[in-house]
């Protein structure tokens, strides 16, 4: 809008008028933008602030899952739920499943872990004993036993997770979720 154009052109106090216009615009901007900007920043809280989704991991964020002896020696994947204290905004729910993973054990007690969330759009993949593949029921993504994708429906291979074993034979996994639908594996 052009409010100043609506003034009589032969205004004798044009200078005073200009100051009044500028003053009201500045003051108006300050008063209207202050609550608006504060509110917007508040609304953007989810991206402004890193939030915990669970509590109870060790110092590096690893959670105990199972023991080496529970895992088959031939590398057959087994699914496990990870238990921790789930954090949802202000609430903390004790000892809840915060996610599920597939673990495979190889010779020399090497263990690998997959997040069982399909990197396509986030359904859970299932291990098919007969074909020895991971299949996603939603849009038919398929993955080999080592997580490599078998078709081009998923944008990337199954997401691996960090694993460690301790001297007691306990297997620990650092649980993370990753963004779906993109080629690059990026934690969310």
């Amino acid at each position: 809008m052009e409010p100043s154009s609506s003034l009589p052109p032969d205004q004798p106090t044009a200078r005073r008028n200009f100051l009044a216009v500028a003053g009201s615009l500045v003051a108006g901007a300050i008063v209207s933008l202050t609550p608006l900007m504060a509110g917007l920043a508040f609304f953007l809280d989810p991206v402004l602030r890193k939030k915990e989704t669970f509590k109870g991991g060790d110092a590096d964020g690893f959670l105990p899952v199972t023991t080496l002896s529970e895992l088959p020696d031939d590398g057959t994947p087994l699914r496990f739920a990870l238990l921790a204290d789930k954090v949802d905004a202000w609430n903390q729910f004790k000892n809840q499943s915060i996610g599920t993973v597939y673990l495979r054990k190889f010779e020399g007690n090497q263990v690998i872990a997959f997040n069982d969330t399909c990197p396509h759009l986030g359904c859970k993949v299932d291990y098919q004993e007969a074909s020895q593949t991971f299949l996603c029921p939603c849009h038919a993504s398929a993955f080999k036993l080592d997580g490599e994708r078998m078709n081009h429906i998923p944008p990337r291979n199954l997401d691996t997770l960090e694993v460690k074993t301790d001297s007691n034979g306990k297997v620990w996994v650092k649980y993370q979720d990753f963004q779906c639908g993109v080629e690059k594996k990026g934690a969310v």
Partner: protein
Amino acid sequence: MNSLLDWLDVRTGYKALVHEALNEPIPGGAKWKYVWGSTLTFVFAVQVITGFFLWSAYSPSTLTAWESVYYIQHVMSFGWLVRGIHHFAAQAMMVLLGLHFMQVVIAGAYRAPREVNFWLGLVLLQIVLGLSLTGYLLPWDQKGYYATKVATNIVGVTPVIGPQLQQIAQGGTTYGHHTLTRFFALHAGVLPALLVGFLALHIYVFRRHGITVSEADQKKPIGKFWPDQVLMDAVACLGVLATILFFTVWKGAELTGPADASEAYSAARPEWYFLFLFRFLKFEEVDKLGLVFGALYVPGAIMGVIALMPFIGKWKLGHRFNIAFTFALLAGAAFLTAIALKEDSADKNYQAAVHMAEFEGHRAVELAREFGIPSTGALSLLKEDALIQGPKLFARHCASCHRYNGHNGLDQVPMREVEENGEKKQVEELATAADLGEFGSRNWITKVLTDYHTTFAPLKNSGERGERFLQGEMAEWVKDNAETLKKPENADSLKSLVEFLVAEGGREELQPFDPALVEAGKAIFKSGQLANGSFTSNCADCHTLASVGEGAGPGYPTLTGYAGKVWLTEFIKNPAHDGFYGSERNLMPGFEGKISDKELKLLVDWMVGDYFRKK
């Protein structure tokens, strides 16, 4: 750019609208006294904006309302700012309403043809009052909860339909989830929508008649709304915003402990701008005439007079009456508010209750931060917290005899009513047992050993049996040995003995214990041999070191574990046990069966200082 605006104008005609809106002539020129309506509109806009954002994070139910407000206020980015602005803008709105109203009455702006707009203004006033009332409850904290209870109970005394109205407002016969959903629907939906509607009408009718200009100003040149008056309005809004921000930063929006229906909040007060009404209802004469009279008929009559102002103003002295009435009303309200504030500031128990609610607020936040809030809500954090529950249990179960640093655990002094020369008076209830504020500490033990009489002095208030305590064997022992113990040469010996006894209790908060002192203390306990001189009889002659509760016999309390958790628990359950005072001498009731195990644990944990402390 211009062609685009023209294109839009052809299709919407917005230029004419803007022109109309901005070029309103102001006879006599722009004036500071015309800014109040604009500042009100501005504050309302602020409330809509901040309210929307708060809405995006608020969760109305009894298990999530306080919790989400806590999260907004203490965790979310800029939550304190958005909530603070919303909180203080609401109060600014009340002040501005008062100013706007005064300006209207003084200028006689209610006169024909502006009566309808005056009434529209009164409707807006009611809506704003409704907004502040419904908003006060939403955080579901102690203050808001109990203040709002008063309001809904007043609704309940409305003749004929009161109870039904109250139930509709509360969403049931008591407060619960649905009270919040309803209040929230009113606060964030119905009332703002009504306010927008009536505000539009108010402004429309106002524009139809224009500003009320005094006779003197009518002769002066005509000014323009834009930019002269807009500048003044904007500067006034800036001032209002600055005030709101000042309070937001300085005080911040308050959040007391989560609402607890089982724990009456004895300092319930409405927001400050309703305080005069609260005080008015407290007058005995008003009280006698009934709640309906004070809370409904009187305010109703006042509103009636105000609504009739346009007619009253037509009479010869009517305008003067209206102004006088307005000022009398304001003066009366200010006076009542002042009395209320003065009385409250002189009332120690009121202060203690306010302090408690604030403390519970801080504590709940501290615990929520540390442990997260369980799905059973933040109140359960407080219910499991010894620091909060201990003093309450002490006040309930112990304070009829004991004191805690001179009060009842909750900073209140138990009082009792007596008649003196036919006049009723409140006097302090005398304690009949020891003050337990320092119980079990090094200081306490030192006091018992060197100044038994002062420590247990309150026992003389409990009659003959208490006297017997004060002249018992331990009292005699202290009388005989205090001098020796207090000798400067024996300072280390006393310290050792105290250290040994404190270490016996094993209390976490008193650690670390000095092992060398403990050893030396144990030797003194057994032998009575001090650096300089010795006891008339050894501690171990009477107090055997045995497992808790199995002493040397009635009247010789076991000192193993003295004042520690287990000892204290057993003692409170049954002080008349032979391991403690024995049934002959004991004055204290046993609490076994009178207090639940959980409560006893909370009480003891508090007394021994075992609760979460922020590092």
